[in-house]
């Protein structure tokens, strides 16, 4: 399940809603991305998240489908916000539920790594020298590539 929205979300409520009525769940992993109030010792102001609505839904749904094809998940949820956000605000939520914790962890980690590099959102931060577009980080690309590598390794093992 995915939701692209301007409003905030309640993680506790989403967790409860996601497992309700489902069977065989042994592990529930969640990740919340927050607007940091400090980075490298400097205060960060508000930020605005621009997105490409027609593509966002499609891209995020595809990312979720990829995760569900790769790991035996009992349930999953992705919420991504857009609009203006203040330091400390929640940006993104990923929840994965599986029989075993390893699957829940890996799928959750994969989802956030892929959202970072695939979902069409752009952050613009307010700084002392005016608004500034956040640059994409190489470390995010490497984090996402790791999963492609993993798949290759697995496929090799599986012959």
């Amino acid at each position, binding site marked *: 399940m995915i939701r692209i929205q301007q409003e905030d979300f309640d993680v506790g409520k989403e967790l409860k809603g996601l497992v309700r009525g489902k069977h065989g769940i042994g592990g529930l992993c969640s990740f919340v991305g927050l607007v940091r109030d400090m980075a490298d010792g400097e205060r960060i102001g508000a930020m605005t998240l621009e997105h*490409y609505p027609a593509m966002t839904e*499609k891209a995020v749904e595809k990312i979720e489908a990829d995760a569900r094809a790769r790991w035996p998940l009992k349930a999953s949820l992705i919420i*991504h916000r857009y609009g203006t956000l203040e330091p400390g605000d929640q940006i993104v939520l990923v929840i994965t539920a599986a029989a075993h914790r390893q699957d829940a962890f890996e799928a959750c980690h994969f989802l956030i790594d892929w*959202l970072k590099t695939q979902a*069409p959102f752009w952050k613009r931060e307010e700084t002392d020298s005016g608004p500034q*577009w956040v*640059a*994409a980080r190489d470390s995010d690309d490497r984090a996402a590539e790791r999963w492609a590598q993993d798949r290759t390794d697995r496929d090799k093992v599986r012959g």
Partner: protein
Amino acid sequence: MKLLYFAWIRERIGIAEEEISPPVSVRTVTDLLDWLKQRGRGYEQALADLSIVRVAVNQDYAKLDHPVAPDDEVALFPPVTGG
């Protein structure tokens, strides 16, 4: 063809979207980008470094050799920074 621009590419070009009718010789994403660059200083600046320009054709990521057609929606944007 409908073009959409996002983030600093939108700011440099100065508009968020436009309808264009490129010549028939524009068959791929590369052709389109080359043609756009001729349209003015804003386009030229926005598309100067293609290593930081991403392209989606009909809401799917597309490579430089991907074909483009008159009814397509083509979006140009910097590497994404969500999550």
